């Protein structure tokens, strides 16, 4: 499972998420890392937007949590790994939360399903009372061919 993968200690940045100002910090740090990894401006914006969404979910539903971004490698592919973790109430029905337009009233209902479209890989694990972990990867197109 993606969510169980150990995080590479190499170059990982952790951002505590406890206020709406932290959402801005998280997406700026994430964008800076994406830039340093050679992502295009377009990809940098997709990554920053996805980070903004998952960080806001932490604030809205868990009040506090943590966001980690790190360079990621799998065989010949390189990319960026984004992990959002909280110890909040958890999501009772993940299938429902992943449906377009489903909203608890705090957003447009686009957050989680939208993030899946913004990133290349997306996984969510949640237990009621046990918190939520979202793991997302965006692969750098430079390495897609494996050359």
């Amino acid at each position: 499972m993606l969510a169980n993968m150990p995080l590479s200690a190499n170059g990982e940045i952790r951002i505590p998420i406890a206020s709406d100002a932290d959402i801005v910090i998280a997406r700026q740090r994430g964008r800076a890392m994406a830039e340093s990894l050679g992502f295009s401006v377009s990809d940098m914006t997709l990554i920053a937007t996805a980070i903004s969404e998952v960080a806001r979910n932490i604030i809205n539903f868990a009040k506090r949590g943590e966001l980690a971004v790190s360079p990621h490698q799998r065989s010949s592919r390189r990319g960026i790994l984004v992990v959002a973790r909280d110890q909040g109430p958890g999501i009772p029905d993940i299938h429902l939360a992943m449906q377009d337009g489903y909203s608890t009233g705090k957003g447009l209902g686009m957050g989680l399903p939208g993030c899946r479209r913004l990133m290349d890989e997306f996984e969510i694990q949640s237990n009621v009372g046990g918190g939520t972990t979202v793991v997302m990867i965006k692969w750098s197109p430079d390495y897609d061919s494996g050359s």
Partner: protein
Amino acid sequence: MEVPILKQGSYLIATFQAALTDEDLLKLQDALVMQVGKYRSRGVIIDVTALDVMDSFAARTLRSLAYMVRLRGADTVIVGIQPEVAFAMVQLGLTLESVRIALDLEEGLAIMDQRTKGGKSFALVGQSSQKRRKA
């Protein structure tokens, strides 16, 4: 970082910065809805050229803002959505359907002028057609 609001004739122009928090957005919304009345503005232009990310919260706030301004009798135009921001908004599934949008500040001002003058010329056309009917 609060969003500066510039009063330009009968319009209000709000220019976004990159590092805009949810609270900044809500403050801007309140300030604009107030100032439309205070300055009797006919239009609000929101310049998002510097905005790095338009997420679901920002989009929802802009939609509400435009609707609130409408209820105060003025129009809103959003200008300066960057190509990569537009791309991300579509991927995320965000829409600003009910909000008027223009390429940049220049276009936004042109649309506002057109609307203001358009209203007048519409009235004139109405008058002249009435006259024609009488004649």
